[in-house]
């Protein structure tokens, strides 16, 4: 992939706002993305993700705020130069269905004024595993294969920043996994990817950092950092019968801040400072109390929990 990066981050976004009349699509959005990073941009439908991508892709002008894309300040004057350095794959791949796969790519190679078109097209098709379908008409391809052609098109120019807007939207699980594998392969090759999605497992698997967007950028960080920020560390232990004196057994454990009993009457959730220290001590204490320990597991919050926590709090705020 493109090794000729400009110095500094791949994307710098500073208080970017876009309004369409009375409606605010995104407001005061600020973040940076480094070269070689896969950055996930998460949010519900209508959160302003696509608007942000379109703004950074110079397709629409921001209402206020500034940004730099692939080392160039975002402005109308820099539009052509920025678009030469990036590639955007919109949610729908947007292929000319009456043209073949190779003809579609050849058209875009012409628009980018590439000189070594044959080699580039062959390389892009190979990277998405479609080298044998070059002469097929796009209308004959499945949705998943069309998405792959869209990805090949985005890779034609070895872009400095690759924007992928909902790349697995509408795909079946197998096709989605194929796209995930392709993105994973790109990440390993050091391609800077700005991935817009509302599939949280996708973001968790592929992204180095994520930003959660809901008109404003609600939070940003590594998935594990966000989990730690939002949720206390807990371990769950399950016994065959309720503990006779649970407070005596659990309250004094090293690293245990508090505990609670769940509705089933035999599962105890312990808030701890360090699960690695607290778990063995909890096991010993339960066994010493003469109880049968059936399970002991650290609770792992997913990115989905983080996401729902952020979005739910927005919904609650709106209702208030």
């Amino acid at each position, binding site marked *: 992939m493109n090794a000729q990066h400009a110095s500094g981050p791949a994307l710098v976004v500073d208080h970017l706002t876009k309004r369409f009349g009375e409606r605010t699509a995104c407001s005061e959005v600020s973040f940076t993305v480094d070269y070689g990073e896969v950055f996930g941009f998460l949010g519900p439908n209508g959160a302003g993700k696509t608007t942000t991508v379109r703004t950074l892709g110079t*397709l629409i002008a921001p209402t206020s705020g500034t940004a730099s894309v692939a080392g160039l300040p975002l402005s109308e004057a820099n539009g052509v130069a920025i678009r*030469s350095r990036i590639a955007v794959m*919109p949610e729908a791949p*947007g*292929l000319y269905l*009456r*043209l073949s796969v190779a003809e579609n790519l050849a058209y875009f190679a*012409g628009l980018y004024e590439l000189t070594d078109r044959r080699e580039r097209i062959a390389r892009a098709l190979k990277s998405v595993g479609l080298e044998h379908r070059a002469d097929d008409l796009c209308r004959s391809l499945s949705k998943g294969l069309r998405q792959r052609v869209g990805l090949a098109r985005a890779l034609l120019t070895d872009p400095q920043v690759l924007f992928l807007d909902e790349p697995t939207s509408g795909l079946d699980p197998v096709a989605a996994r194929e796209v995930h594998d392709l993105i994973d392969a790109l990440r390993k090759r050091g391609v800077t990817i700005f991935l817009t999605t509302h599939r949280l497992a996708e973001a968790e698997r592929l992204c180095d950092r994520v930003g959660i967007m809901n008109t404003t950028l609600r939070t940003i960080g590594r998935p594990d950092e966000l989990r730690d920020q939002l949720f206390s560390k807990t371990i769950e232990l399950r016994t065959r019968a309720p503990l006779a004196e649970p407070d005596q057994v659990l309250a004094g454990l090293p690293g245990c801040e508090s505990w609670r009993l769940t509705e089933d009457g035999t599962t105890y959730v312990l808030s701890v400072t360090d699960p690695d220290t607290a778990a063995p001590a909890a096991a010993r204490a339960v066994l010493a109390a003469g109880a049968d320990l059936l399970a002991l597991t650290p609770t792992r919050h997913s990115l989905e929990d983080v996401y729902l926590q952020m979005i739910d709090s927005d919904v609650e705020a709106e209702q208030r």
Partner: protein
Amino acid sequence: MIKTLSATRIRAVVAKELRDYRRNRFVATTMAIMPILFMIAPIVTIFSLPADAASQKLDAGIGVSVLYLTLIPALVPAVVSSYSVIGEREQGTLEPVLTTPLRREELLLGKALAAYLPTLVISYVMYGIFLACVGLFAHQNVADDVFQAGRILAQVLFTPLLAAWSIFAGIAISTRANDVRVAQQLSTLVSLPPMAVTALIGFGVLAPTPRIAVALGAAMLVIDIAAGRFVSRLFDRERLLTGVKV
């Protein structure tokens, strides 16, 4: 600021458009059948003129024939150009294209040329066949009238100018329309008014002299240039992608 247009990108747009037309049954059929119909009709009209036709009847017959022939550069590109932008929007191909370094002027010029070039070839070929038929088979007095330098010059000059108007009008409507069919119907209507200019010479209202043909041609050229600039201004990326007027 002077923008440098890229010939490579314009060529890429033209090549893609021509390839796409060839594989679009509706466009290919329209481009093939419509010109043949508009060539047969004037030949029949000319051949039905008697050898001793009065001057008035001669003018009327030739006027109708010329009108049919000018329908070719007016209507053929209208069908294609009206599809140019809204067709891309409906296919979902506009956004990927706009994310490339392609400038709007290059996109519009490429699309206009892709409609213009086949239209010119078809129109001149049909006119050539018409003239050949008239020269070979029509009555001498009719042929003499058709072969007046002013009439031929008017047809040769007006063909590209009518086509250009029709294309710019079609693209303008295509950038603003929300439905392909509506765009095509409107484009067909809007492509017709300039034909009044050719009708003035065709029906003998204005004497078919080379000077008048050149003067009318210059006037149409000015209108075409203004139309081209207007179309470029109408093309607003943001509005086309978001549907919101900025």
